[in-house]
């Protein structure tokens, strides 16, 4: 079985269309860039101030003025451009990002998202996440289905919201789920799991799409 994170990242990559502008969150979402098919041209945005984010540089070829929002050395592709943080979030909040892909601590069936704070425990701050999920045309949550067995997809988030009613799609190692006005709809199930397993791993009702497909 392939690495769980790679399974998720590879599936997320299939959601992206030629010409899309995409923002990838830190961690797993960053891996999505490795799975973009040939011939599909994606412009990646880095919220610290540029479009045209490229792969990591070779060892010894780092440019110290060029890091991503996770403070890692990166490169830019031909056609890139740099701008300030106000312009960057103008792009984000203004609906000019086609998809934002990020992890989450919790998502609920109303499309509410909680991924920035665990009161009394972890207070990293929201960074650009609140703006990204409110502004991007499509919000895709890419995460492991549970946190060591503990539900992350819930009826109601228990942690403070990042934003309300913003999530469009959840992609985990178990399946692909769409948030609709009638709750969470399972559209694809990964062949390694049964319907029973994914339902058990989900903390809210999971409607199975009439045309359920295998997640590949």
């Amino acid at each position, binding site marked *: 079985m392939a690495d769980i994170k790679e399974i998720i990242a590879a599936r997320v990559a299939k959601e992206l269309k030629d010409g899309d502008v995409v923002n990838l969150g830190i961690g797993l979402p960053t891996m999505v860039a490795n799975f973009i098919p040939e011939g599909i041209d994606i412009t990646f945005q880095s919220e610290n101030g540029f479009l045209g984010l490229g792969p990591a540089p070779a060892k010894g070829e780092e440019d110290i003025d060029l890091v991503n929002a996770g403070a890692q050395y990166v490169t830019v592709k031909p056609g890139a451009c*740099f701008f300030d943080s106000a312009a960057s979030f103008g792009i984000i*909040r203004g609906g000019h990002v086609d998809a934002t892909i990020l992890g989450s601590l919790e998502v609920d069936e109303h499309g509410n998202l909680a991924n920035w704070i665990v009161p009394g425990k972890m207070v*990293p701050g929201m960074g*650009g996440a609140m703006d990204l999920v409110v*502004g991007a045309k499509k919000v895709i949550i890419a995460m492991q289905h549970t946190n060591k067995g503990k539900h992350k997809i819930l009826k109601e988030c228990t942690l403070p919201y990042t934003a309300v*009613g913003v999530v469009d799609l959840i992609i985990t190692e178990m399946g692909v789920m769409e948030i609709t006005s009638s709750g969470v709809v399972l559209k694809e199930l990964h062949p390694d799991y049964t319907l029973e397993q994914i339902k058990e791993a989900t903390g809210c009702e999971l409607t199975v799409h009439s045309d359920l497909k295998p997640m590949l």
Partner: protein
Amino acid sequence: MINKIKTASEAVAPIQDGAVIMVGGFMATGTPEILIDALVEKGVKQLTVICNDAGVPGRGVGKLLTKGQIKTLIASHVGLNPEVAQRMNTENEEDKLTCILVPQGTLAERIRAAGAGLGGFLTPTGVGTIVAEGKQVIHAEGRDYLLELPLKADFAFIRGSVTDEFGNTVYHEATRNFNPMMATAADHVIVGTCSIVRVGEIDPNQVVTPGIFVDTIVGGEMPWQI
């Protein structure tokens, strides 16, 4: 022309305990380390620092944090500097850090609003979250927005890549981030820059921060400070 060029210690001389200081940079990329170092040396305390993040220990505003010079930090993200949590949770009241978290886009826009003479703006970011607490919700054209207010400072620490003697400044790559807005939103703006050139050497089409915003220029900023 008024001479704006000073040493780092001359530049930070007017800063007193309790000052409100904006510091450019994103995880210390684009932070003027020579100005931070001068402020550490000066030893002023009880500062309010406005910066995207808390840097990392040993870089950027992280240095001020280590020295206990910051009373209040207004930032969007502090997770990559473990000292923040330590100082927020200390039992020594005098050393206790207050941390005010602001969404990154809202932080950038609040600083811009202060510099641009706007009384505030309506943003969809934070509606329905704890960020909305205490804020006015305004319904406009079918949607709810938070009214966010401008954010000013006494001083701004800006990190330029090339600055002319009038203060016109350009920023290289990802070092730009918050610097251009902060340069407009403080009473006194100090640029720590990698290269000082003569007036006229920067193409007027390429200037990002106009020299009129800059009060003091300090040369000798390096591409990287350890």
